[in-house]
């Protein structure tokens, strides 16, 4: 048993060393996405950055005469829009509607908003129908503070907050928009600062879980081990 415990202790030490080498450490449940591709990478990502990709799709007009529902993604999956049947005006010749998603290099000053993602512009060969919406979904980097909302602008601006429909998936943020245009995710630049940068959202579950784990082990595990040892001792004495 001593050998087994020694192997286990060595594994604990090896894990602590390996996990300390990367932040946040062991990370498995929802795997971290591939590194975010920046148009203009923050300094820490400059060396390893790859350029973001655009997306294109043509959506046909269905038998009912309305443009079919679809989802359009950039090739790297960092931006997407989704829409329902008839979201776009049907072209007079019933030709397919062409939709593009492109990362933008130049965009209006977002002012008091800190952008956490690239800016992506959505364009189409046919306008969005009156009263219709698109669902804009943007990925953000797992290495930076999470954005609070999706922001957007049309033409030359200004930026406006569109909102946040709730987390569709970890490291993705979504919002519904009733116009096409350009979109990015971000948060107010005056958000609370921490040593690691602005903390906009996010749970504090990890330290609490670790504290609880230590409590459980101390309050239940150690007494249980002592009782077991005493029980074994009694059995030895009886034997």
């Amino acid at each position, binding site marked *: 048993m001593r050998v*087994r415990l020694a*192997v*286990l202790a*060595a*594994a*604990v030490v*090896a*894990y*602590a*060393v*390996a*996990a*300390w*080498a*990367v*932040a*946040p*450490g*062991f*990370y*498995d*449940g*929802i*795997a*971290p996405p*591939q*590194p975010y591709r920046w148009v203009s990478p923050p300094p820490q990502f400059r060396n390893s950055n790859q350029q973001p990709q655009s997306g294109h799709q043509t959506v046909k007009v269905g038998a009912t005469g309305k443009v079919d529902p679809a*989802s359009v*993604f950039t090739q790297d*999956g960092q931006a997407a829009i989704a829409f329902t049947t008839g979201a776009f005006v049907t072209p007079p010749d019933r030709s397919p509607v062409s939709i593009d998603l492109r990362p933008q290099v130049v965009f209006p000053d977002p002012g008091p908003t800190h952008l956490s993602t690239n800016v992506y512009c959505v364009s189409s060969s046919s306008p969005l129908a009156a009263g219709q919406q698109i669902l804009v*979904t943007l*990925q953000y980097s797992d290495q930076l503070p*999470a954005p609070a909302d999706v922001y957007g602008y049309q033409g030359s601006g200004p930026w406006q907050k569109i909102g946040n429909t*709730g*987390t*569709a*998936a*970890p*490291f*993705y943020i979504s919002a519904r928009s009733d116009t096409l245009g350009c979109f990015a995710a971000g948060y107010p630049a005056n958000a609370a600062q*921490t*040593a*690691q*940068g602005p*903390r906009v*959202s*996010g*749970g504090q*579950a*990890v*330290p609490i*879980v*670790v504290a*609880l*784990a230590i409590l*459980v*082990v101390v309050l239940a*595990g150690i007494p*249980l*081990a002592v009782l077991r040892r005493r029980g074994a001792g009694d059995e030895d004495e009886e034997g």
Partner: protein
Amino acid sequence: MKGALALLAPVPVRAAGLTAVAVALEWARVLALRTPQWQALTLLAGGLALCLLGVGRRPAELGLGRSRLLERLIGGVALAGILLLPAAVRWGGGPALAPEFAVAAAAVSVGEEIAFRGVVFAALEQAYGPAVAIAGSSAAWTAAHALSHPLPFLPAVAAAGLLLGAWRWAMRDLVGPIVGHVIADLAL
């Protein structure tokens, strides 16, 4: 069926086959997740598929016996504490997991433990002994994460695999790794 398979495939071949299937299931899940739709469902399906590898095996063979259950559960909590400690010490906040993803993440955690520390570990131990079982199941588990994790994360994943595999061998227990893995995934 199981008997026929056992006759057809020698123990080392079976171990290699099970390892390859477990890794392939993980890779298939990761590739499917690259489409931003149905992510929770994909995770859930991936976890359940891994669990299916354990069908037809005796619980004790996988380390799932009921003896000393309270100790195993407390051991799992201790493993969770160890797995999360490096992150907790320098925690700066992070995205909270939506409920549907919490269920899916738990399914993946259980599936990975049953597949790698349960089925693959048992097959490798039967074929080559405990040292290869710990190292081999850890290597397979690391390979399974190669498509989903950036390269710098893989040593931590491998070390977590070694830790959970060492527990599986030292305590003859899979309940602890399952509990620890689920808690760690839900928290982080």
